[in-house]
């Protein structure tokens, strides 16, 4: 496997970005991250993005954002209608072929224009489920009750996850839910969708993330301490809710094994866990123990930007490795109802 590392990243997340289009707010990030390590688009061998036409409300909306990369002369480029983490995966695969040394990856969305929890009903089975319009909180609440009634997690443990995420988010300038709250205060919250409380649900944001991958010696030239990708894998569970166990994440478990999560200690993990229940499922599936700091950024409970939150997890984990806060980290990305699809990435510093 060719050594590929995250060498730089930049992100922006806000409750709602009202006066700029997606392109307008992504351009400064795309240029800023390249400038931060002294490269230009001409140095980039492959550019790959993740976004959603459906959320943007416009066909081929990503093409205008590609224009913002400064693609003259023409560039080698691709796009996934998925979280930017899957664009990173495509770029990583491309880099394995040995033809290119640097890739630019980004993901973004501006979901504040609509009601995301309702829009997400359209990702459900189009015949049996979507016509009933269950919103995303209801779908997760069904899994949450099953999980709690199984006795594997309590409402109090979920409140601890929410409280700790708020504590961590308080020191993250990109987080939007930063008010600290005790476990007791979260236990006293009225359910928003029983048994989920307001602190159990994601903090929906507009924004995006841009990240640069570099291979081998090029990575060492561009970054004092690159965050090397030592394992990366993605798996998916069945789409139909009734045919899978909503209290366990089989896809995350398999992806974690393939990525080698358990081969060594994990200093910290950035998990794509929109709900407190999702975090429980992921720590369980990945076998993360108490010696692993979970979501030092505050995670998606601190700020959740559709199509970028997974890529942001990788960027956050990589940045902490580059900063020397730890040597080995796990980052995950997810997609679909009840964590249907999961990508797991293991990052290490030298």
């Amino acid at each position: 496997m060719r050594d590929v590392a995250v060498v730089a990243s930049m992100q922006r997340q806000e409750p709602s970005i009202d006066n700029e289009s997606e392109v307008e707010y992504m351009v400064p990030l795309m240029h800023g991250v390249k400038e931060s390590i002294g490269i230009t688009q001409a140095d980039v061998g492959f550019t790959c993005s993740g976004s959603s036409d459906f959320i943007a409300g416009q066909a081929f909306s990503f093409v205008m954002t590609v224009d913002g990369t400064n693609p003259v002369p023409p560039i080698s480029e691709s796009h996934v209608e998925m979280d930017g983490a899957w664009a990173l995966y495509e770029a990583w695969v491309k880099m394995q072929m040995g033809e290119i040394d640097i890739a630019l990856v980004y993901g973004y969305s501006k979901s504040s224009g609509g009601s995301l929890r309702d829009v997400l009903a359209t990702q459900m089975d189009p015949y049996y489920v979507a016509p009933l319009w269950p919103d995303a909180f209801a779908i997760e609440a069904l899994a949450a009750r099953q999980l709690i009634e199984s006795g594997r997690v309590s409402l109090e443990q979920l409140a601890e996850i929410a409280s700790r995420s708020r504590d961590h988010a308080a020191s993250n300038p990109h987080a939007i839910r930063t008010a600290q709250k005790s476990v007791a205060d979260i236990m006293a919250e009225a359910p928003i969708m029983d048994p989920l409380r307001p602190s159990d649900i994601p903090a929906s944001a507009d924004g995006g993330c841009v990240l640069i991958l570099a291979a081998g010696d090029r990575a060492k030239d561009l970054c004092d301490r690159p965050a090397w990708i030592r394992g990366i894998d993605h798996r998916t569970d069945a789409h139909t809710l009734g045919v899978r166990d909503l209290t366990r994440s089989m896809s995350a478990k398999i992806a974690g094994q393939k990525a080698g999560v358990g081969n060594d200690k994990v200093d910290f993990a950035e998990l794509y866990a929109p709900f407190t229940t999702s975090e429980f499922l992921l720590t369980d599936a990945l076998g993360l123990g108490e010696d692993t700091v979970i979501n030092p950024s505050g995670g998606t409970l601190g700020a959740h930007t559709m199509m970028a939150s997974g890529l942001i997890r990788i960027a956050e984990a990589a940045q902490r490795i580059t900063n020397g806060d730890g040597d080995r980290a796990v980052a995950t990305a997810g997609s679909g109802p009840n964590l249907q699809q999961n990508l797991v990435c293991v990052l290490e510093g030298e």
Partner: protein
Amino acid sequence: MSDTANDDVLRAPLRLEYPFIRTTGAVVGGFLTGLREGVVLGAKRADGTVLCPPLEYDPITSDPLTELVEVGQAGTVTTWTWNGEPRPQQPFAQPFAWAMITLDGADTPMLHGVFVDGPDAMSTGMRVSVQWRDEREGHIADIAGFVPEESA
């Protein structure tokens, strides 16, 4: 320009639409047709278990599933949540519970609404039965919802 000057120009109304219709196939279509007739069908898997609603392919083995069997019109709630205010576009007029319901004779649960007065009337393991809509058209909402079995 007068109309008479353009008599040779062909004209047609412009209607912005998405004019595609997809057939639902033998399995999904069979289930939806069943709903129109007031019966609920599931798909029988090779191991004898029944998926309801039916899927075209087995989620574990990927084998095509072709045998539809009738399941019961009452079943057991496996999990639920309370939808205090119907959200826009939901086909329910009053507050209701979302529930996963395993119908008698089926081995997997389906999602639908349950009509009760409030969350205190809901519990995992409770028995519910289908409440049919009078006018049915082959749609998942032909099932108006479910009601507790004793009140059916």
